[in-house]
């Protein structure tokens, strides 16, 4: 029986929320706690009389029946079952005394008369409580009996039909095939069907034609893209770090992983475990770090997608904590449908989640070896390196070649070895000067350089490197005569570029050396192991401050220069100490020697043919036969790398190969991943959620109101992930199937998809939700199976058209008595326009792209003089095929999301989002009419139409088939033809206008097209792309 139209509205409205019920004592359906009472108590009373012990007033709690019957501080029972007149609760609700009234007037809360009456009646009916539905394990509900079985196609339909029957509603007829294929294609791939697809499907006489189509679409590689978008919102995926400067990161490998996982139909339990703990799983599978499955590491990036700060002045600990909070909130929302965030600062007011629960959950995610402020540029540690195939093979090739050269350099070679022997002999003959490290009495600097003496007698300069400097050594002359002075400039890891100089490039610049100050001893000659081109060591004894001995490009190595005195210094005769001054006065600033050692010799005519490393020098001092194996190797290595012209060529090959390898390695893409520090970091509860106010220590655990980790599971992320998809835990399967339902019908069976807790909405079809949840687990968490079930149901296949009264009575289609009609998501609107025009580049996965965007949008927000030090500060639009990639690949900059996407309700991905709003605004109209993306798509679609036929009617038909997957009706044809004629005559007389219009967008106009004609068809195509039906799945 259908009620009369006049009462339909009110009546249906009441039914949606009330549903079926058993008649109670007062002649009305009995009230049900979860449906009728909890929402009122939760909204109005639990803040002060609920779960949160700290906020509880009057020692009264109303969320537990025994406590309510017992009453609070006043000693009066709040509820006397069956006797509202004796119940303090009822009295306080109904009193006119503002002192006594509940909720207190100043709380901002108040009950409606109907709510008061509901509570009164509930007490009269016996005040029956129920545990919150979502915390009870879903049981397979018996499919309800219905009067007419002919309509149902699968178990889903029993539940929706039963509800409809109970309200006297009948389902809408099945949509026609054209509508069905468009709906299916958009729902399962996010792309409209081609006219050929439509034609094939319409003509398919097979009784399973629909099911075949569903399977075909589920197997499309675009299915994974479609499913991924919802997941990217939930995972707060973005291409920038989100805070402050908001520079770029690269998580595209993770995005590709998600698309692949959906396409491979990875079971949801595995999908979960890999994303929450892929790193730990990889470790479990393979203890050796280098051999771990990179895919698993990439998957674990789910919880690295949060924003990462680097703002100068921010405090690292504060942000390290913010990231963990974000992980807790995202994980709890995505899998549990709970608002854990509420328990960050205090016990949850509505759900059984304590602050201790929150921080016990927090402990699972508090163990990542990350830096608090690491969002400057690029990916933040920890990361996994992901060489492309080309890079991997090139690296392998280079490594093999490098190995050859390494081998050659280390192996005997008759020619080179003979030369080495000769060199050794010559070295002995020439340089066998005996050098004694100078006994330094004092070392002073003119400009405040400070020195630290090292064990080998060298001095390391510290503090700020001055522009110019003089080192003055006062030396006790311990030899009988001094013929020469050696100055060594030694490499050191503490120096810039490893030294030996203090300049950032490691260079030195000895402008002069003076021995014994004003009455300087003359220096006869200078030799050095190495001098930079045009900066020979002789420039250190030429008395010219503007020239100096320098050593580039050989920074990072030891060098030495020997200065021979014209007359030996004889301590006995000359007396006093010896002073040696090293002057760094050249125009090359900060070129002081960073680590310096001065030695003296008494050997006549000393020379320093090479700044031999100590080890080599010691080895050479011994006879060849007496050297250790190590010493032999070091002499050979030194000779071959530094002396032998032949081996030096080998060496150059080796260096070149290394450089090539480094260059490739620098370009290897990475992805941010999770990691665990060796031992668990201690987690404290944080008072008021503040990072700098640690409280009691907690250990990782699941919330007390939910089942504990299964025995044998480690209390880490891996254990938690397995727990989330274990059979014991009632929330995950409900939360997930509810979001799947939302994808098809525009909203979930529980409307508040982000919250299944007591403040969330109640399910419209609780048994259906449970049935789907149980079926999901039973099927082995088979994701495609659930999609298939939903879209093959008769419920889904209904026509979305309905009498206006019915739509107005149930605008959100909560009774499911018609098919879904939902505006497309932001990405799919643009994909649709590019697809029907033929512009779409269907390539799947890979890098993010920068399509058309009004100029200056980023720059206005973040232009700085130092912009070039960061990434993603200036919008540098892509060209060519990148302009036409699917919209899910559009670069997501969190502080400035692409305006066309934001206008169509795409989130900014700053935080986890599991439900997008759907608005309908004039800004959307402006974008669809005027954004060059759509103007270009209209023009290219126009070209396609012009080429399709010479007949206008046929062209309009093609346009409708492309955009709407159906033929136009006569009235529509007439409207479109009128528009076409108007535009033809307009552009026919305004060729310059046509010309301008056709120039929008970078895709060139095909040759031989009449501009006025194409302009007219561009307007027609634009009109179709702007249709409500075009941007709606109906």
């Amino acid at each position, binding site marked *: 029986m259908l009620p009369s139209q006049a009462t339909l509205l009110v009546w249906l409205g009441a039914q949606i929320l009330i549903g079926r019920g058993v008649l109670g004592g007062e002649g009305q359906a009995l009230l049900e706690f979860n449906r009728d009472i909890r929402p009122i108590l939760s909204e109005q009373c639990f803040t002060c009389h609920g779960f949160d012990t700290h906020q509880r007033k009057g020692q009264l709690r109303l969320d537990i029946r025994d406590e309510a019957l017992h009453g609070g501080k006043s000693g009066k029972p709040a509820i006397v079952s069956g006797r509202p007149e004796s119940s303090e609760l009822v009295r306080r609700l109904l009193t006119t005394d503002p002192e006594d009234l509940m909720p207190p007037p100043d709380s901002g809360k108040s009950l409606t008369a109907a709510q008061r009456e509901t509570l009164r009646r509930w007490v009269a009916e016996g005040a029956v409580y129920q545990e919150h539905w979502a915390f009870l394990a879903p049981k397979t509900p018996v499919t309800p009996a219905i009067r007419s079985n002919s309509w149902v196609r699968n178990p889903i339909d029993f539940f929706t039909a039963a509800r409809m029957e109970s309200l006297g509603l009948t389902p809408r007829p099945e949509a026609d095939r054209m509508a069905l294929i468009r709906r299916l294609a958009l729902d399962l791939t996010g792309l409209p069907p081609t006219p050929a697809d439509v034609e094939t499907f319409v003509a398919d006489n097979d009784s399973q034609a629909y099911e075949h189509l569903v399977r075909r679409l589920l197997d499309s590689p675009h299915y994974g893209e479609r499913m991924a978008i919802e997941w990217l919102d939930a995972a707060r995926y973005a291409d920038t770090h989100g805070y402050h400067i908001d520079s770029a990161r690269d998580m595209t490998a993770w995005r590709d992983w998600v698309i692949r996982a959906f396409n491979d139909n990875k079971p949801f339990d595995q999908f979960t475990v890999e994303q929450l703990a892929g790193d730990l799983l990889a470790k479990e599978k393979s203890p050796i770090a280098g051999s771990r499955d990179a895919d698993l590491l990439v998957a674990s990036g789910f919880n690295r997608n949060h924003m990462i700060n680097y703002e100068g002045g921010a405090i690292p600990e504060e942000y390290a904590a913010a990231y963990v909070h974000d992980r807790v909130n995202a994980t709890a929302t995505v899998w549990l449908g709970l*608002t854990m965030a509420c328990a960050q600062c205090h016990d949850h007011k509505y759900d059984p989640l304590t602050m201790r629960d929150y921080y016990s959950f927090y402990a699972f995610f508090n163990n990542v070896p990350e830096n608090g402020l690491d969002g400057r540029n690029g990916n933040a540690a920890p990361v996994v390196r992901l060489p492309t195939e080309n890079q991997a093979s090139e690296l392998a090739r280079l490594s093999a070649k490098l190995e050859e050269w390494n081998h050659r350099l280390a192996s005997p070679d008759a020619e080179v070895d003979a030369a080495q022997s000769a060199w050794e002999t010559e070295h002995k003959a020439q340089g066998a000067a005996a050098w004694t490290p100078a006994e330094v009495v004092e070392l002073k600097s003119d400009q405040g350089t400070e020195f630290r003496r090292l064990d080998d007698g060298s001095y390391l300069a510290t503090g700020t490197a001055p522009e110019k400097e003089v080192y003055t050594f006062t030396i006790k002359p311990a030899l009988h005569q001094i013929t020469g002075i050696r100055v060594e400039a030694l490499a050191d890891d503490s120096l810039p570029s490893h030294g030996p100089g203090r300049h950032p490039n490691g260079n030195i610049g000895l402008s002069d050396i003076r021995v014994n100050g004003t009455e300087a001893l003359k220096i006869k000659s200078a030799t050095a192991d190495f001098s930079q081109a045009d900066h020979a060591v002789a420039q250190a004894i030429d008395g010219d401050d503007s020239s100096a001995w320098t050593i580039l490009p050989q920074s990072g190595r030891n060098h030495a220069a020997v200065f021979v005195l014209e007359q030996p210094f004889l301590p006995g005769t000359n007396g006093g100490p010896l002073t040696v001054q090293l002057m760094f006065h050249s125009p090359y600033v900060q070129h002081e020697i960073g680590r310096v050692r001065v030695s003296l010799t008494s050997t006549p005519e000393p020379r320093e043919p090479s700044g031999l490393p100590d080890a080599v020098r010691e080895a050479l001092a011994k006879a060849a036969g007496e050297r250790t194996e190590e010493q032999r190797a070091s002499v050979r290595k030194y000779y071959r790398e530094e002396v032998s012209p032949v081996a030096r060529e080998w060496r150059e090959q080796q260096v070149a190969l290394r450089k090539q390898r480094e260059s490739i390695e620098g370009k290897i893409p990475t992805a941010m991943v999770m990691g665990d520090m060796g031992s668990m970091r201690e987690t404290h509860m944080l008072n008021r959620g503040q990072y700098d106010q640690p409280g009691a220590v907690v250990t990782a655990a699941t919330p007390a109101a939910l089942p504990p980790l299964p025995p044998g599971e480690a209390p880490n992320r891996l254990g938690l992930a397995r727990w989330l998809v274990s059979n014991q835990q009632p929330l995950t399967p409900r939360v997930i199937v509810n979001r799947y339902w939302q994808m098809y019908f525009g909203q979930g069976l529980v409307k508040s998809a982000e919250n299944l807790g007591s403040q969330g909405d109640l399910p419209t079809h609780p048994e259906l939700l449970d049935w789907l949840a149980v079926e999901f687990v039973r099927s082995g968490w088979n994701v495609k199976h659930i999609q298939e079930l939903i879209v093959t149901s008769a419920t889904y296949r209904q026509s979305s058209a309905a009498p206006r009264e019915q739509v107005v009575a149930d605008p959100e289609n909560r009774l499911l008595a018609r098919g879904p009609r939902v505006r497309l998501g932001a990405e799919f609107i643009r994909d649709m326009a590019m697809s029907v025009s033929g512009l779409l580049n269907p390539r799947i996965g890979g890098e993010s792209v920068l399509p058309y965007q009004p100029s200056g949008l980023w720059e206005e927000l973040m232009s700085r003089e130092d912009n070039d030090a960061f990434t993603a500060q200036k919008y540098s639009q892509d060209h060519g095929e990148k302009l036409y990639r699917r919209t899910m690949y559009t670069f997501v900059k969190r502080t400035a999301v692409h305006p066309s996407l934001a206008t169509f309700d795409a989130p900014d991905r700053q935080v986890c989002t599991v439900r997008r709003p759907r608005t309908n605004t004039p800004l959307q109209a*402006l974008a669809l009419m005027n954004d060059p993306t759509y103007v270009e798509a209209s023009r290219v679609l126009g070209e396609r139409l012009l080429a399709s036929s010479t007949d206008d009617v046929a062209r309009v038909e093609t346009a409708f088939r492309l955009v709407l997957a159906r033929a136009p009706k006569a009235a529509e044809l007439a409207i479109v033809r009128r528009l076409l004629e108007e535009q033809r005559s307009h552009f026919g007389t305004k060729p310059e206008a046509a010309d301008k219009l056709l120039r929008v967008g970078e895709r060139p106009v095909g040759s031989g097209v009449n501009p006025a004609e194409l302009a007219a068809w561009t307007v027609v195509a634009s009109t179709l792309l702007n249709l409500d*039906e075009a941007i709606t799945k109906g």
Partner: protein
Amino acid sequence: MNLNTAYQTMQTRRHFFGRLGGGIGSVALASLMEPKLFGTNTGVGVGGHLTGLHHTPKAKRVIYLFQSGGPSHIDLIDYKPALRAHHGEDLPASIRMGQRLTGMTSGQSKFPCVAPMFEWKQHGKSGLWLSELLPHVGGVADQLCVVKSMWTEAINHDPAVTYIQTGSQQAGRPALGSWLSYGIGSENEQMPAFVVMISQGSGNKTDQPLSTRYWGNGFLPGEHQGVRFRSSGDPVLYLSDPAGIDRPTRRQMLNALDELNQLTADQVGDPEVNARIAQYEMAFRMQASVPELTDLSGEPRHVLESYGVTDAPTDGGYARNCLLARRMIERGVRFVQLMHRGWDQHNALPKQIRGQAGDVDRPTAALIADLKQRGLLEDTLVIWGGEFGRTVYSQGALTKDDYGRDHHGRCFSILMAGAGINAGTTYGSSDDFCYNIVENPVHIHDFNATVLHLLGIDHKRLTYKFQGRNFRLTDVHGEVVKGLMA
């Protein structure tokens, strides 16, 4: 809530300009709906969700001149002649009290106090002291309520701006303007409730970036996001028709589009289609009304000169934005927010602040005077202020004529003018170092509660349920500051 009201809620939630109506064929639908009045009798405008204001408002609209980066209250507003005596001395530990410092100065070994290197003068009947950097603002001194006791916990830009704008240091919540758009909507259905305009001052050219989050809708529906009006290109994105499409052509296209959509509406019964028809019509009207708004050619020369609007501005467009703000509120925009960058003066402050204050001094004063002269200041609230103040001690070396100042949230100053405020007064005070508040602290939550109060809104009752919790701008805090209201 029955379905009828559920439906209305759904409809009225669409805004900027989202109300259903006016479009072809919506008559039949309108008859199904209880008429919703958007009259001034409720004080709630187009798209607003409150059924009525909570009390009689003092202000109907707000112009918020946000000074991004943290202006130095010490060098501009908070006059401390006694600070001279401490110039160059280390900040006493008794003043610093272990206060958390940013990573930029926490490593300094010395914290030398800096007295401003500017002259100070008294202005108006109230005798308000202002530094020489704000001579024009001095001219409207008697219209101002100066709050010298603002404070925030945040000490870095991103969290601090997010905090003062949204009530939370972390992303995800709606901005003040979005809350107003959601709560009381626009006064004109052809104008957005919440507009944002951006300018870069001549102070610090490596100033902090802005994020759309600062005027974001958070968890509120997208139409409550601040609409950015731009000074180059289309003032509103995608406002202009593409090259080659003239107005008659657009009209013809829309006629066809409306007719085709109406056929769909008739067939599928979905009121969304009618709503879309109405939105296209609204878009068409905006294409005329927005350029009219941003066209300053009708403004008399003396007005342009008083604001300092010139053809080659050095202020990044601040003066022009001030004048546009007036034109917007004249047309019913509820909340106009200017975001003026350049105040983050960590070094070379004396030079930078001269330029930066020079950008804003004349236009700010001109706006207040202009509103006053037009009778608009009576019900328009004007706010001038940033996300925090700056430290009394120098960041980096203090020399004879140069210093810098780091961020300081513990105490800073803002200016208010117009509707409902106690003009010609000062509220709250700081110690001799402008470092700690000694009287009447105003936390940013208190400040936001007060702004809502002036608009007739109880900050505890403008809420939105998200993730099962009723959120509000002031989180669980905020006290209306009676002392700064008339």
